[in-house]
């Protein structure tokens, strides 16, 4: 059922998407377009690329990411996103929570047919 899959996926996405953003920024800073494209390349993570921008805006307001402008070779200057120390802490906390949560869910779900 496509509709059912979409609903549970969209509920899951709602909770984890912001941490996926933080994770993409953990080693390197990215400009928004790249960040969005890399997220949408992850299967099932993004349906509408435009909806990531409001999320980025919230992460900025929460102080988890910061932005700097940089000139680009072609086209207008780009805004680069990077992780703040608070963002790093949030990501570390989520990573630990996620592992625990994932293991618990895996233990409850029927085993995958191999």
């Amino acid at each position, binding site marked *: 059922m496509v509709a059912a899959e979409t609903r549970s996926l969209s509920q899951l996405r709602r909770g984890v998407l912001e941490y996926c953003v933080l994770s993409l920024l953990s080693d390197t800073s990215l*400009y*928004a*377009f790249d960040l*969005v494209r890399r997220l*949408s390349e992850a299967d099932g993570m993004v*349906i*509408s*690329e*435009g*909806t990531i*921008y*409001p*999320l*980025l*805006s*919230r992460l900025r*307001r*929460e*102080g988890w990411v910061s932005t700097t402008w940089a000139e*680009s070779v*072609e*086209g*207008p200057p*780009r*805004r680069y996103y990077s992780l703040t120390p*608070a963002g790093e*802490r949030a990501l570390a*906390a989520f990573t630990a929570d996620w592992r625990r949560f994932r293991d618990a869910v895996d233990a409850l779900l029927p085993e995958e047919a191999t």
Partner: protein
Amino acid sequence: MTNSTVDRLVNHYLARLDDAAQALPPDRRTELLAEIREHIDASMSGGTGADEADVRTMLDRLGDPADIVAAALEDSLPAPPPNPDPSLGRRPGIGLEVGAVVMLTVGSLIPLGWFVGVILLWSSGLWRRSEKLLGTLIVPGGPGLALFGGAAAASWLGAAQPCVGPVTSTISGQIVTPAQACTGSGLAPALGVALLLFVLIAPIVVAIVLLNRARGRAALVGP
């Protein structure tokens, strides 16, 4: 070249977005439009150029302006205070719930203690109705009353055997220790002991379950 077509597509999309974004606070609206425009510019300045098909695909991937604005509305709700330190975050207390559980078990040894426990139990918002029923029904009166009642029952069962049972009046609340109960032969004493164990252990098990659920829910609610 189809530059004019491309421009028309982009302008049409931005106009739809601007229209939908009227629902947003003015600063959010400006910000969102600027970011989407930046995305479009970045996409068109890429090496692949910008023919009509590319632009259509790119706008498709951006998604319906209404969806983007809906996401912005959700995200523009008041943000939590920045950098909340989890160790400093106050969890909602479960003092009421701890009190309820203590009164339902240990508290039942004092007069009216169990009733206080029931009142606390039903005034908590962290338990379901079924859980409150469970807490009330296992065991009515709590282990305290059950202890007295169990002892009385043991005596009574013992009395059913051909041994004298002068303790039938103890249901009124007078303390009767199991030692006083008739320890006549047969199944009755064993039944009595089993019942006694049940009424002592079951409320404690229920109390632990209730407390765990309250703790779990309080943690979910967050600070």
